[in-house]
């Protein structure tokens, strides 16, 4: 049995460890590109006969245009509905029935789009026709077939997510099912059938109600991001605006898939008990079927510099919550590693400045921290501070103390301990990411997509090693300014508790 051990014999903090890790990784990774442009990365770990897989598509909600916000996420749902021959008892009859559903929807939509001039009675009638058509189409559905087949074969953790930047589909399989998975996964991106589209949209609307509309924090975050971005499509929520969800059509979703789900816009990463010599021909056989298509248009709108502080106070009977965001560059910007260092020093753990000041010493916050990566990293994102005031304290107090800490960071160099801790933790966290096959697969796919080379997960560590105290002061001074910030508070109303 061939086993490649991931042994770090000479473990020293510093570049030796990273160089060693890099060498080991290079030996365990096999990468190749199919003729159709699909990039495949295999990482070998033969400790257990299991594999984790990610199909990482370089499209997210940021690619959406007004009128179809939410469509990236809707398509993600649809990708589990099966294919032209998985999930139906009669593909031909089903397609006929589906076309009738589309027609009924267009008729309903035409009336709905009349806005205040719409005829409610007519709309109800058209709705009933739509429901009838949906019922007829359902006759040909073998629901959940794709997912059931896959689960029955040992698939564990079948899941997917959509973000502003990308859409990822992932699962884990026992390693003897590699070819079966290659067939199923390539099949569903080769011939997806968007069956039960309008019912699934209803479900997505319920999801929006649950995650955003019924949740005080959900509402708050949606407002916050929309206010921070006035031009760039990060402004829109991933789940989409309700009014757009109401009117998106199956044709638009099909179009979306054809534009963006194409092999040179995708990365497949497999980590675990995979043997490249056997795996490569299997992957080429099944994924090679995906046709090439013209490269999709990139996102071209750039968020203009913010001209003044933006603030919003949301009143809600729930407990208070404060969030402050500053615009920054994207993942490949030279200051990115400095921001990572600042995140660590400001918000990571009990030694972080925000914890020490707000939670431990002043005792005005239940929790406080900082993070980047929201909304996304492909385009210029935000650096976010947040705080949950303790009972008896307010968002205003938390806000002013945060600004004090920010000023301190601009004017006083951080300590040696703090800077060293950043670098040590970056390495420790990196190692921990490698513990799970799915973590490795995800990291490989992420870096390959966002920088063009999976090896950059190592150069990121080198970058953070180079961050200096002056860098931190410079970046804090340049980015953490009043003009560049967006502030949202969630707090109970002041008028006697009943609103």
């Amino acid at each position, binding site marked *: 049995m061939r086993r490649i*051990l*991931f042994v770090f014999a000479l*473990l020293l903090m510093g570049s030796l460890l990273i160089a060693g890790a890099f060498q080991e990784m290079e030996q365990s990774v096999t990468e190749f590109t199919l003729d159709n442009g699909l990039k495949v990365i295999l990482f070998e770990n033969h*400790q*257990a*006969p*299991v594999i984790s897989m990610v199909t990482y598509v370089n499209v997210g909600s940021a690619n959406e245009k007004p009128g179809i916000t939410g469509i990236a996420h809707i398509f993600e749902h649809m990708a589990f509905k099966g294919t032209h*021959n*998985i999930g*139906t*008892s009669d593909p031909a009859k089903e397609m006929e029935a589906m076309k009738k559903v589309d027609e009924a929807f267009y008729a309903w939509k035409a009336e709905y789009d009349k806005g205040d001039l719409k005829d409610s009675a007519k709309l109800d009638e058209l709705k009933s026709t739509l429901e009838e058509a949906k019922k007829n189409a359902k006759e040909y559905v073998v*629901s*959940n*077939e794709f*997912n*059931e087949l896959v*689960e*029955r*074969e*040992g*698939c*564990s953790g*079948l*899941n*997917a*997510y959509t973000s502003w930047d990308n859409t990822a589909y992932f699962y*884990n399989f*026992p*390693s*003897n*099912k590699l070819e*079966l998975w290659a067939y199923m996964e390539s099949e569903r991106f080769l011939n997806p059938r968007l*069956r*039960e589209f309008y019912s*699934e949209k209803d*479900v997505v609307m*319920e*999801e929006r*109600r*649950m995650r955003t*509309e019924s949740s005080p924090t959900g509402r708050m975050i949606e407002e916050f991001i929309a206010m921070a971005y006035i031009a760039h499509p990060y402004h829109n929520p991933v789940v989409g605006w309700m009014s757009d969800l109401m009117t998106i059509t199956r044709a638009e979703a099909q179009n979306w898939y054809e534009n963006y789900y194409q092999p040179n816009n995708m990365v497949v990463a497999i980590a675990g008990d995979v043997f490249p010599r056997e795996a490569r021909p299997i992957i080429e056989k099944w994924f090679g079927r995906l046709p090439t298509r013209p490269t999709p248009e990139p996102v071209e709108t750039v968020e203009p510099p913010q001209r003044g502080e933006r603030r919003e106070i949301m009143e809600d*009977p729930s*407990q208070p919550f404060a969030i402050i965001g500053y615009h920054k560059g994207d993942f490949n910007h030279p200051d990115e590693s400095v921001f990572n260092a600042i995140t660590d020093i400001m918000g990571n753990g*009990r030694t972080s400045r925000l914890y020490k000041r707000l*939670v*431990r010493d002043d005792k005005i916050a239940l929790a406080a921290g900082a993070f980047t990566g929201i909304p996304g990293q492909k385009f210029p994102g935000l650096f976010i501070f947040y705080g949950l005031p*303790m*009972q008896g304290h307010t968002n*205003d*107090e938390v806000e002013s103390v945060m600004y004090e800490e920010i000023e301190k960071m601009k004017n006083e160099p951080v300590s040696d301990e703090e800077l*060293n801790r950043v670098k*040590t933790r970056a390495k*420790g*966290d990196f*190692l921990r990411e490698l*513990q799970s096959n799915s973590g490795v697969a995800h990291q490989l796919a992420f870096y390959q997509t966002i920088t063009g080379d999976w090896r950059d997960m190592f150069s990121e560590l080198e970058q953070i090693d180079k961050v200096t105290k002056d860098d931190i002061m410079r970046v804090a001074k340049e980015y953490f300014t009043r003009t560049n910030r967006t502030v949202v508070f969630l707090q109970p109303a*002041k*008028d*006697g508790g*009943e609103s």
Partner: protein
Amino acid sequence: MRRVLLFAFITLMAFSLLAVVPQEFTKLSDNAPELRPLKTPDVQQITLKNGLRIMLVEDHRLPLVSGRLMYRGGSVFDPADKAGLAGIATEVMRTGGTEAVTGDDLSEMLESMSASVEAFASSESAYVSFNCLSENFTQVLDIFRDIVLNPAFREDKIQLAKDQIKSAISRRNDEAQEILSREFPRLLYGKDNPYVAIEEYATVDAITRDDLVAYHQRFFFPSNGILAIWGDIDAKAVAKTLKESFKGWEDNGRKVASYPKMKYDLTPGVYFSHKDGVNQSYIELGHFGIQRDNPDYYALEVMNRIFGMGGFASRLFKNIRSNKGLTYGVYGGVDWEYTHRGSFFVSTFTMSPKTVDAINAVIAEIRDIKTNGVTQEELDKAKKAFFEKFVFNFDTAGKLIGRLQSYAFYGMPMNSLDVLREKIKAVTVEDVNKVAAKYLDPDNLLIYVVGNKDEIDPSLSELGEVKEVDITIPAPKGEEAPEATEADLDKGRALMTRALKAHGGDAVLKVTGKEVEEELTMDMGGQQFTLTTVAKMVLPDKIHVTVTMPFGTIEQAYDGTTAWVKTPQGVQPYPAEEFKDEIMKEFFNLLNAVKNPDVTFQYAGTESLGDKTVDAVFVKKGEAQFKIFLDTKDHSIAGMKYQGKTQMGPAEMVQAYTDYQTVDGVVYPASYTVTANGEPYITSKVLKVVLSPTLDASIFAMPGAAE
């Protein structure tokens, strides 16, 4: 309670016709090679002389080491009046540092090594765990040992932990799902059951450093725990090190505690808690389940997969979610616990108007499987999925050792995973049908809904009589009066009688009501704003208050039974209990109470209030109590202390009268201040007082209420 609520993110319409599976799939499935064998790593198990059980697994793939001490010291052992003890004790074991090193210094040391040592308690068990890079293992193990053996429980960290938990308590009703998960077990097992006890302000306040020390003393002895360490270690060397590090740690006669006995008194019915601002209902229903050692466990595991714990393939998912489109997430089955019977439950959420439909659909599914059982096809599919996925039970060292540690903790044989596989293999359709018939009871369900009562239509009463579940967070108890002696009670009433005289005697007793106009300045979070109030009252318990603020007017009223509030948005009911408490403190009611044998006045010594020396008297009526202060010089009421609440939560309020005016022979306050938790809160000037006015009785009734 081992409960995992999983809601699939993907909704698919589900209704199972005979599956038409593509040939290609069948071919690949049939021809899939055998699974390569997994070489399970060796688990070294040692019991030290002092009784400590140790489990070690080597995994050299990455230079990381993890460890976890699992011990019998969960929250189930908290005294009822100190719920939260295990949680605070474990938190402060870490944050309060050890005798040698403060918690903050430990944080600096650990975080600089990218390492962690943490402690936490769940219901039946508690843990101290660590994680580090292998090069720091020796040092981190030493810190871990020090925390386990010598926690210092420093006072400042105890206070910090308590304040944080209290803040968390104040947030516990913000999310409907959290309310559901917390309250359903309490309805099922009974609020007083230690397995489902929750912290309250009062229980957290009652916990002292001595309690934490006692907790540590009670549960930290070698025979009470199992220490597992895995990762980039040399097992032999570590075993030797552990023998040395834990030398001197002895049981000293301590015995492993027994889990509390359980009572199983099911109270089936329909229960409801209202939550504002949600357009969905969160639903959980069920009854008692089984204990792990029940031999029907295996057949039930298979039944669960078919019924509601099998992901996309389960009946609940396919029928309730996909087929009927009633919900976005549904999950449930006959759950189990090691130490007591778990619950049979189904949990879901749905848009408010579909609440009753969803519940009925779930009940129909329960009846169906109970009455009609399962098919051979369902059984085969469920078993196949189980076996195909089996490798994921132990594909990492962490998973493997976690499982074995649990088995050891609960006294299960180490080969229980193999036994599970064998037993599941043997389960037949008859077995599943038998347990479905035996363990499901759709006629005796406890149904709990958290949702928006204005939008649940048809109403829940279609399902049965609805019992409200009050989830109001109990306010912290104020200062408690000590045991009362006869002398204290006599002196108290005597002081009150003098106060009555000082304020006008008969003139006071003659008063039937009042109309009082005040100008208030309120301090909230550093901002001040002014408002005026007009309070109209008919003694003893009808009150109407109009509050005029910069941005609008609010009316509140209480007619002795119900209370309401009217804002620019409309009229809404208001909790009557809040008025009841306030009514007792009202000036005239207080002085009239001197004649009331149901009210006791307990003298509690002298204090100072501002620059006055005052006699303190506890006023008690039934459960309610507060303290009033009487000027030692002129016997007038100088102020009072009570538990109240501000916008930001519960607070201790101290009211001090700063000036008086005489109206119709009554000495009535002219101005006063209120502090909340010691901070300035209200300053009031009484502008106008009219005693025994003629008032229109209809102002106390809720506007729009049926006459």
